[in-house]
């Protein structure tokens, strides 16, 4: 059994290990938070795109069975997320509730002048002016369709802004990724630097480079895993707190997104720590003895 003093001594020698884990955790946490923002922004942009209104006005006198058939046909299309059939009566009720008074009397007509329609919500990938123009062209050829209505300028503005924000986020993410890589690399290099004489001793007793490198790289990967796990715990806490305070976020932060984010953090931790350790050890394996002192 090693004495307490021996354990303390070993721990003191290995204290750089804990420092490295803390540093890597902080970097991964920053990246994780950015990842969360990027994924949320993506969800938000999809949410907005998928709520762009696209109305198909049906000609008067078309049988309900034909309208329902058209709705079913649309439901099978890959670009459609949801469809909603709005009858003349429902359209009238909605308009009345919007206006706050009966509009047929106001117009001086007894009969409901509104037409039935099918309201489409698109999958985000299709919610752009080019795709919508093609879809519009195809739908308008249907003999039961009177016209198609959607706000082209709104679609254009939404897509333009989403693209702009995505570019800014992408640039910022790349920059942060580079900074993270540099910080983790520096942390690991300092940690390996403190072991440079141990590496030299290992070389001189006849250990091969691969044998020397292996425990260092394994330890580096383990550091990456531990740091990633701590980061995941911290981000989980933040997500829970956010969701309990802003319930609307539950729509944007789904379990699938969290799994992707955590997988990303784990892979990043393992990759950065592993690769940095590999190169740092290689540097000291190949360094000339007198330079170890410099």
């Amino acid at each position: 059994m090693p004495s307490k003093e021996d354990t303390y001594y070993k721990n003191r020698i290995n204290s750089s290990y804990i420092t490295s884990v803390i540093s890597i955790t902080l970097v991964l946490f920053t990246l994780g938070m950015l990842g969360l923002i990027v994924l949320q922004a993506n969800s938000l942009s999809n949410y907005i795109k998928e709520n762009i209104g696209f109305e198909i006005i049906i000609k008067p006198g078309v049988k309900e069975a034909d309208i329902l058939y058209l709705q079913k046909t649309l439901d099978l299309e890959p670009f459609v997320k949801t469809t909603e059939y709005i009858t003349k009566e429902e359209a009238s009720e909605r308009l009345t509730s919007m206006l706050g008074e009966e509009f047929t009397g106001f117009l001086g007509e007894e009969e409901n002048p509104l037409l039935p329609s099918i309201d489409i919500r698109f999958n985000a990938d299709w919610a752009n002016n080019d795709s919508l123009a093609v879809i519009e062209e195809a739908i308008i050829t249907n003999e039961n369709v009177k016209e198609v209505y959607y706000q082209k300028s709104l679609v254009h503005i939404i897509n333009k802004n989403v693209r702009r924000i995505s570019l800014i986020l992408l640039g910022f993410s790349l920059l942060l990724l580079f900074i993270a890589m540099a910080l983790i690399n520096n942390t690991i290099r300092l940690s390996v630097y403190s072991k440079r004489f141990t590496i030299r001793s290992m070389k001189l007793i006849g250990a091969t480079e691969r044998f020397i490198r292996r425990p260092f790289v394994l330890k580096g990967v383990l550091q990456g895993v531990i740091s990633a796990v701590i980061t995941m715990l911290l981000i989980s806490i933040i997500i829970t707190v956010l969701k309990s305070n802003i319930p609307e976020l539950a729509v944007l932060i789904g379990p699938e997104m969290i799994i992707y984010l955590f997988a990303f953090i784990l892979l990043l931790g393992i990759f950065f720590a592993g690769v940095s350790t590999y190169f740092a050890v290689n540097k000291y394996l190949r360094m000339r003895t007198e330079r170890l002192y410099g």
Partner: protein
Amino acid sequence: MSGDSIIKLNTASIYQRNKLVLENVDLDIGSGEFVYLIGKTGSGKSSLLQILYADLELKAGEGQVCGFDLNTVKRHDIPFLRRKLGIVFQNFQLLEDRNVEENFKFVLKATGWKDKNEINQRILEVLEQVEMIDKLKVMPHRLSGGEQQRIAIARSLLNHPEVILADEPTGNLDPETSNGIMKLLLKICESGKTVIMATHNYNIIHKFPGKIIKCENGLVINSANKLN
């Protein structure tokens, strides 16, 4: 008594980076010899040893150590050359984060030993050789300087090396402990191994005579059994 040539240098020039440290070095050391390498600080003793364990590249001249050609040895073959050598340093260079047994196990595993019983057996053998059998589970920082050096010598013996290269092994030790280390190195030499020891402690050379090689003014002077 010296046997077959185990270390040979012919007109070798030794450089540290681009600076010439020793030139026209001719050396022929047989197995079982005890050789002192003497000279002032900076005279090139350590550089000469570095050439022998391939820590420095031999840029000019020819050299063979334990059957390895220093001119053609590849980087990935250097560990196998070092397994035929036992290297001992002034500052011991034990792995500080593990006890004596773990230090030795690391060396044996690093050099291809697999069988646990053989590993344990060999560790006990070398500890017995240096009379440190009771230090098996002790951390290096708990050992005195003399004890650490004995452990470092035991470590160098693990792989049955043909040559022991000792760079100022008594440099950090008091005279009495140094005598103990010297007796140990001589005992190792008597068992048939070649010992090359760099030192500038002339008292030791007087007390324990051996072949002397002197590094001076960029040259190596063989002065067999004489100390000038």
